[in-house]
């Protein structure tokens, strides 16, 4: 799908391009993945809503030509839940950083998973708080340096996909910006899933994470992604020791369960109005 000639400009607000992201920041690549996925699905731009919180990744809403909403830090899913429930006919996509989604926004994350409301969450996981200058996040690898872990980070990381699965999301996948076609594909499938979908995309922050952790150039960061990634299929054949430090990519959950707004219509509205 990635090889087709695609008119990115159709989904962008060109007057705001170039975007503010640093040279080589992976967030731009994810935005392109989203465009390709949305283009493939032919979503109606007028009926598509893109919601974000606060962070470098969250700035994506300024660039994409949808109904866009830049909320408060960590709260995008709460706002999105209101939008979706109020107008179930809208396509609702949420873009969030690792900090936004799993630090301050962790509670909304697990609860959106639990409700299985038809929203697609794309987590831009760069293992760091980019916007505020490179402090460690709940996904920063143990031992890494950040501006608040001058002695090396000791906090264990979240496995975002595992958490999403345990909380009840019905589509859960992990990709990275190195294997960009896979990201396109997972985002597409996430949007197609009628229910709550989480697509974690491993990306990079050369400016902060890279600089502090010996991944100097953007290309170094991409190559690192390639090195540490293992597909879910291969991972199954590997021992825990071999998997140490690896990041598993692939689809973890893809199941069908009744979606929240549909259930609301079927079980609450109809009952209240005496139809059932």
């Amino acid at each position, binding site marked *: 799908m990635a090889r087709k000639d695609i008119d990115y400009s159709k989904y962008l607000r060109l007057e705001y391009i170039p975007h503010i992201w640093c040279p080589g920041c992976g967030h731009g690549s994810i935005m392109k993945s989203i465009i390709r996925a949305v283009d493939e699905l032919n979503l109606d731009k007028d009926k598509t809503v893109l919601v974000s919180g606060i962070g470098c990744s969250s700035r994506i809403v*300024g660039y994409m030509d949808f109904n866009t909403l830049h*909320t408060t830090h960590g709260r995008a899913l709460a706002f999105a*839940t*209101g939008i979706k429930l*109020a*107008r179930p006919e809208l396509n609702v996509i949420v873009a969030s950083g690792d900090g936004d989604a799993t630090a301050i926004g962790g509670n909304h994350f697990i609860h959106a998973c639990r409700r299985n409301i038809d929203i697609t969450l794309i987590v831009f996981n760069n293992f760091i708080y980019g916007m505020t200058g490179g402090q460690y996040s709940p996904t920063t690898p143990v031992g890494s340096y950040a501006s608040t872990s001058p002695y090396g980070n000791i906090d264990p990381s979240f496995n975002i996909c595992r958490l999403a699965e345990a909380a009840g999301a019905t589509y859960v996948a992990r990709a990275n910006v190195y294997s960009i076609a896979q990201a396109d594909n997972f985002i597409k499938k996430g949007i197609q899933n009628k229910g709550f979908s989480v697509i974690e995309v491993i990306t990079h922050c050369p400016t902060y994470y890279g600089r502090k952790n010996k991944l100097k150039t953007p290309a170094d960061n991409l190559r690192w992604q390639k090195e540490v990634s293992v597909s879910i299929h291969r991972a199954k054949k590997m021992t825990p020791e071999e998997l140490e430090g690896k990041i598993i990519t692939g689809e973890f959950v893809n199941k069908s369960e009744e979606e929240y707004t549909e259930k609301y219509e079927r079980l609450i509205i109809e009952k209240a109005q005496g139809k059932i």
Partner: protein
Amino acid sequence: MKVKESKFISGNEAVAYGAITAGCRFFAGYPISPSSEIAENMSYLLPKYGGKFIQMEDEIASIGAAIGASIAGKKSMTATSGPGFSLKQENLGFACMAEIPLVVVDVMRGGPSTGAPTSPAQADILQSRWGTHGDHPIIVIAPTMVQEIFFEVIRAFNLAERFRNPVVLLIDEINGHMRAKVDIVDESEVEIWHRPKPENPVGWKTPYKRNEELVPLMPDFGDGARFNITGLDHSETGFPTGDPKVRQQLHYYLRDKIEKNKDKMIKSEYLNTEDAEIMVIAYGSTARSAMRAVEVLRSEGVKVGLFRPITLYPVPEKEIFEVCENVKKIVVPEMNLGQYVLEVERITKGKIPISKVNRTDGEPITPEQIIEAIKD
């Protein structure tokens, strides 16, 4: 006015019925005493009208979802009490900044902190004005009677929609739980406002272009305009800006939207004020004690009046100044340690002695206490 139904209900229930009449079709909340009956009644009523009720994971998410639903075009409400009101402050500021219509109910209980969850208080007054960071525009209404709550909720929605601003409705444990007869009327019987929108929303690119009341003409999401909403300083387009001029202008607009329209927002009641030599200023359920005090003292020939601000913010400065101009004493009873009295002090410029009547022990201020302060 055609009454649809008369019910013996509590103030909290009246909030729910009033909201339905006002056209509220979305409620997101998180239970907390003494406000929970609002959520409970909304969970029952809304689906009957095709509206949606959702219980979110906390108060932050509740106001977030309510704002989201409003952005998607629904008249929207959330309700809480002190601790939850504190938690909602960040997103309340977002709604102020992004100019999203919203009604936030705070049923006040004893504070600070967990305080006295089932006891009345009126101690979130200044918080309702200043609780979120940054200068922000806000409208605060504090009704007194149960029937009035029904109509003031409608007015709250009207102001929220007309001025695209959050409106805080302050109830307290007493009038929230007090039951009285409420005449419920249909929307056809009352004035109902809807948010200003551009004539043709399709392709509209300037959601913060303002009408003559300084209110932005903003389409709803899904209306065919693909615009941006942000809590950052933004221009008419809704996109962030670093231009000091545009930023300053935005903050002036937010202030002036309230300042210049305040006559459309302010509502007060005057009881025996014309010839009064002593003026009681009271709001919310404490005003009922004040009414009783005035009743009793007038029957004794004491020239006392009651000024009851129903809209607390914007502060009825002119009204307070004028009503107090010729009095010898002002009495301000509040179930807090003295909050709105600070506004009264400021407005009356220290010209008239002010007697404060306060208590925060979880018991209502009695008419006797007020009478004593008046006579003192």
